[in-house]
C-alpha cells in the first residue's frame, strides 16, 4: 500500500513536472524581421529634412488658405454671383486668385520634395493619399481618398480626390464642377488664357482649409515619427518605382498632348519636376543608410548611389529640353518613360536585395 502510494505520488509529480516543462518551453525563436535590427543607423538626417520641408509646406498652405478665404469673402459679399464679382471687384479678385495660385505653385513642389519619405513610410503614407496620390471615389474607389469634402454652403463632395489635385483643377479651371463658369482676364493682358477663370469659392475654400488641416497634421505626425531602417528601405523600394506613374501622368499631360490632354491635374508644373523632387528626397534617405549598405556590399552601395543620381540626371535632362521649348512626341515620351521605369525598377530591386541581405524588412 505504501509502495503504491509512493508510486502514485511519484507518477503524479512526474506528470505535473512534464506539464510545467511543456509550458516553460522556450518561446519560438524570433523570426528574422526588423525587430532584430533595431535601428542602429543614425537616421536623424531624414527626419530633420522632413521636418524642415513640412514646416515650409505648412507656411505655404496657410498662405493659400488666406488667399482662398479672401476670395471666398468677396464671393460671399457678391452673393456668389461671379459675373457680378468679376465686374465689381476685378482687381481684388485677381490679386486673391494670383496669390492663391502662387501659394499652390510653392506648396506643390515642396510636398514633392518630401513625398518620397511620406509616401514610402507606412506611418505617414496615408497623408500622401490625402494630399497628392489618392484618386477620387468615382475614378478608382479602391484607391480613393478617405475623406469627403464638406463645403461652406453645405454641399458634400464625396471622396473628391487628393487635395493638391482638387485645388489645381479648381484654381486653373480644368474641372467644370469646381469652377463658376465665368472666365476672367486675371493678368490683364487683354486675353483669356489657360486657367483664367473664377473658381467656385466654396470648393476653393473647403479645399484650402482641408489642405491646411492635413499639412498641419502631417507636421505633427512627422514630429512624432522615429525613422527606422525599415522605413528608409521601404521608402526607397516603394517610391523609386513610381516613375512609371509619374511618367504616365506626364505623357498624358498638356506638356506632351497640349490642348488634347484631358488630364485635369499636373497642368501647371511638369511632372518631370515632381519626379526630380521626389528623387531628391530619396537621395537624402539613401545617403543616411548608405553606410549600412556599404557594410553588406560596398560595390552595390556605390552602384545604387550612382544609379539614383543617373536617374535624376536623366529626368533633369528631359525636363531641361522641355523647358527650352522642346515638345517631346508621345512616342518619345513613351520611350523615355520606359527607360526611367527600367532604371527605377533596377534600383528598387537592388535596394530590396540589400535589405534582404541585411535582414531589414520592407513593409508591404
Amino acid at each position, binding site marked *: 500500500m505504501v509502495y503504491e502510494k509512493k508510486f502514485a505520488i511519484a507518477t503524479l509529480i512526474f506528470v505535473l513536472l512534464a506539464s510545467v516543462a511543456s509550458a516553460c518551453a522556450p518561446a519560438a525563436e524570433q523570426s528574422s524581421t526588423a525587430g532584430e535590427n533595431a535601428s542602429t543607423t543614425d537616421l536623424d538626417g531624414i527626419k530633420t529634412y522632413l521636418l524642415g520641408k513640412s514646416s515650409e509646406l505648412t507656411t505655404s498652405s496657410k498662405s493659400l488658405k488666406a488667399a482662398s478665404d479672401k476670395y471666398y469673402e468677396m464671393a460671399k459679399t457678391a452673393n456668389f454671383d461671379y459675373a457680378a464679382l468679376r465686374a465689381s471687384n476685378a482687381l481684388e479678385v485677381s490679386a486673391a486668385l494670383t496669390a492663391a495660385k502662387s501659394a499652390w505653385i510653392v506648396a506643390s513642389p515642396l510636398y514633392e520634395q518630401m513625398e518620397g519619405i511620406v509616401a514610402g513610410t507606412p506611418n505617414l503614407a496615408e497623408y500622401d493619399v490625402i494630399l497628392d496620390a489618392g484618386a477620387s471615389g468615382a475614378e478608382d474607389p479602391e484607391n480613393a481618398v478617405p475623406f469627403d469634402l464638406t463645403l461652406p454652403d453645405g454641399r458634400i463632395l464625396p471622396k473628391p480626390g487628393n487635395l493638391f489635385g482638387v485645388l489645381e483643377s479648381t484654381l486653373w479651371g480644368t474641372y467644370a464642377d469646381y469652377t463658376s463658369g465665368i472666365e476672367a482676364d486675371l493678368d490683364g493682358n487683354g486675353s483669356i488664357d489657360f486657367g483664367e477663370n473664377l473658381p467656385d469659392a466654396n470648393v476653393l475654400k473647403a479645399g484650402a482649409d482641408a489642405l491646411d488641416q492635413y499639412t498641419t497634421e502631417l507636421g505633427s505626425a512627422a514630429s512624432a515619427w522615429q525613422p527606422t531602417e525599415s522605413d528608409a528601405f521601404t521608402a526607397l523600394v516603394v517610391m523609386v518605382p513610381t516613375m512609371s506613374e509619374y511618367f504616365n501622368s506626364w505623357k498624358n499631360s498638356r506638356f506632351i498632348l497640349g490642348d488634347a490632354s484631358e488630364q485635369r491635374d499636373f497642368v501647371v508644373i511638369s511632372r518631370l519636376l515632381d519626379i526630380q523632387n521626389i528623387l531628391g528626397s530619396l537621395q537624402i534617405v539613401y545617403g543616411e543608410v548608405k553606410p549600412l549598405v556599404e557594410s553588406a556590399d560596398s560595390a552595390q552601395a556605390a552602384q545604387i548611389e550612382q544609379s539614383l543620381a543617373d536617374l535624376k540626371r536623366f529626368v533633369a535632362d528631359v525636363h531641361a529640353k522641355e523647358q527650352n521649348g522642346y515638345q517631346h512626341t508621345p512616342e518619345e515620351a513613351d520611350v523615355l518613360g520606359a527607360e526611367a521605369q527600367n532604371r527605377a525598377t533596377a534600383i528598387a530591386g537592388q535596394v530590396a536585395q540589400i535589405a534582404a*541581405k541585411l535582414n531589414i524588412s520592407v513593409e508591404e
Partner: protein
Amino acid sequence: MPKILNRFLIAVLIATLAASNLLGAASAASTSPAQAAETIRSALVQAQLSLTNDARGSADLVQDAETMYQTALSTGISTSNSEAHLRIVSAFKALKESIVESDAVSFAAARAQIWTGILAGSTTIVEDAIQSGDGLTAQTWLPVREFRTATRFSRPNVGATVAVENFITGKTSTDATLLSVRADLLDTYQARLTESLRDLTVADGNGFSTRRAELAALAEGYLFILSPAYLEQRGIEALSQTQAAFADLRISATDDPQLLAEKLMIVEKALNNFRAAPLSPAEQSRRAGQLVRFLSLVAVEYGRGVVDGRVTRDIEIQEAITFYTGAYAAFSDLKDLLDARDHQQTVQADALFVSLGNQLSETGTGKSVARPEAIQSQTDELAALLKILIPEDWLSNSAQGDFDVIASMLDQMLVAARSGEYDLAESSRLDAYAIMETGPEAKLIVFAPELKLRLEELFWNGQGEHKGLAYLIKNRAAYSEIKATRIQLDTSLTEAQAVLGKNTAPLAIAMNAGIIVFREGLEAVVILASLMSSLKSAEERRYRKPMWLGVLLALLASALTWLLAHGILQSLARYGEKLEAVVSIIAIAVLLLIMNWFFHNTYWTSWLANFHSQKRRLLSKETGLWLGLIMLGFTSVYREGFEIVLFLQALVLEGGVGVVVLGVLVSFAAVVLVGMIVFRLQKSLPYMKILVITGVFIGSVLLQMVGSTAHVLQVVGWLPIHVVKGLDLPYWLGTWFGIYPTWEGLGLQFASAVFVVGSYYLAEGLRKQRIFSARPQMPHTLAEPLKVPHPKTESIEITT
C-alpha cells in the same frame, strides 16, 4: 634619322595603344558584371535616343558598349551560353547597320536582343555556378538580372539573393538553391514577357513603331530565357513552334504591323497555361488559403452593406469588392494548375468569378444592386465547386494565406477608422481576430504562447506602449494611434508567420493538439477527481452521478460544436473570447458554491433551508444540489470547450484528422491518468486529509480559474486593466496558473482565496456556536477538555 624617329614614334604609338587597351581591359575587368551590363544597356538607350540627330555619337556609344561586352561579359557568357553570345554578337552587328541606315526601328529591336541575350547568359552562368558549388560566382553574376516591374504595392523578389547567400554559408543544398533561384528568375522573366506583350498591344494601338519593334524583340528575348523550362514542360516540337511564332511576331512588328494582332493571338495561345516557375507547394497553399478565406468574406461584407435593395454602407461594398479581388487574384495564380486537374470545372469556376465580379462592380458603381441572397448563393456555389477542385493538401499549411487575409481586414479597419466609422472599424477588427483565432492561434498557443499573448493584447485591450485596437476603437482614438498599434501588430504577426512556418511537421501538430487538450483538461479533472474521491460514503457516492452527467453533457456540447460547419464557427469565432468569459464566470460561481457545500454541509443545507422556507417550493434541496453538481461537471469541461474545438479544427485543416486525433488521445490518456492518481491518492487517505488535499487542489484550481477569467474579461474589455508597474512576470505563469500582473487579476485571486478560507472559518464558527448552544448545560472542570464534535468525524466523543 627620320626613319629612326618614325619607327620610334610608331613604337610609342603602338605602345600607347596597347597600354590603353590593357588599361581598358583592366578597367573592364575590375567592373562587376552588373555594372558592365548596366553600362551597356544605358549606352544603347542613349545611342537610340541620339540616332536621328547625332549618328556619330550613336556609333561611338555602340562601340563603347560592344567593347565593354567583349572585355567584361563575353568570356563568361560565351562559355556558359554560346547561343546567347551569338545572339548578342549578331545584334551588335545589326546595330551598326541600323546606324548607317538611320533605322531607329531596327536599332530598337537589336538593342532588345542584346539586352535579353545578356540576361540569358547571366541566368545560365548563375545556374551553372550553383550546380558546380561555386556560390561566389553565382553571387557575382546574379545582379545581372531584371525584376518584376515594381509598383507602390508590389515588392521585388528577393528569393534568389537570399538563396545564394544561404548557399554560400552552407545553409541550403544545391537543389534547394537552384529551385529558389529558378523560381525567382523564371517568374520575373515570365512577368516581363507578359508585360512586353501587353505593352506591345498598347504601342501598336498608339502607332509607336520604334516601341513596337523593341517590345516584340524583348518578348522574343524573354522567351529565349524561358525556353529550357518551356522545353521541359512542352517538348521540343512545341518549343520550335513557339519560337517560330515569336520570330513571326518580331518580324511583323517591324515589317507588317497589320498582321500584329493575328500574330499576337498565336503567341498568346502558345503561352496559354504555361508557367515557367511552377508555384512551390508553399505558394500553392498560400494562394489556396487566400482564395478560400477571401471568398468566404465577400457575401458577409456585402450583406452588411445592402438593406432592402439599397446600398446603406458603401464601405462594406468596397470591402466585398476588395475581398473578391483578392480571391480572384489567388484563383488566377492557381488557374493553370487547376485547369490541368479539371479543365471544365476550372472554366466554370472562372465564369462564376466573372459573373460575381460584374455584379459587385455594378453595385459598386450604383448601376444596379444585387440582393445579398443572390451574392451569397453565388459565393456558395463557387465555394462548393472550388472545394471539389482544390486538392486537400493545398488547404493544409495555409497559415500564410490566413495572414494575408488578416492583413487585408486590418487594412479595411484602418480605412474605416480614417473615415471616422468606428463601428465598421470594430467589425473589421473582429473579423481579423476571428481569422486569427480559427487559424494561426492554435499553434501559437503551444509554440509561441508569449507571442499569442502579445497579439491578444494588441488586438484587444492591451495597455502597454501601444494600446490594444479594441480599446482604441472603442474610445474613438485618433487615427494615428490606431495606425501605430497596427504597425506594431504587423511586426508581431510577421513573427508569428515565421514561427508557424517552422512547425508544420505532423509530430509538431500532434504535440500541439495534445498539449492544448491536456492543459485545459487538467484543471477540469483535478476538480472533479478531487470531489469525487472525497465522496466516500454510500450516500455521498451518489453525488458523483450528477457530476458525470455534467461532464457528459459538456462533451456532447463540445462534439456538437465540432460538427457545426466551419463557416458558422468562423462567424462565432468573433465571440469566442466573450463566450469563454461568460462560461468562466458561471464555472467560478458554481465551483464556489460547490466548495461551500462540500466543506460545510450545514452551511449549504441551511442556505437551502432558508431558500426553501419561502412559500413556493421552487426546488427540493436535493434537486438544487444535483443541478449545482451537473453545472459543475458541465462548466469544468465546456469552459474551454468552445475554443479548444476552434483550435483543433484549425489543426485538422493543417495536419489532418489522424494526426490531431493521435495527439488528443495521448493527452486524454494523460489526463485520465492524472485523474486516477488523484482519485487513488485520496481514496487511501484518512477523511480529514482528504478534505485538506481536496481543498488545496480545488482551491488552486479556483485561483487559476479566477486569474484566467479576469484576464479574459480584461481582454474583451469587461474589466478594466491596471498593470502592476514594475512587476514583470514570465508568460507561463499566466498561461498555466492564471497569474497576470494586473491589480484586478491579482486582487480577485486574493479576494477569492480570502473568501474561501474566510467562509470556511465563518461556517466552522457558526457550526460550533450552534452545537454549543444546543448542548445541555453540564458541569465541567477546567482541567478537562471539551471536545466539539465534527459532523464528519468517524466517532464523536463527549467527555466531561
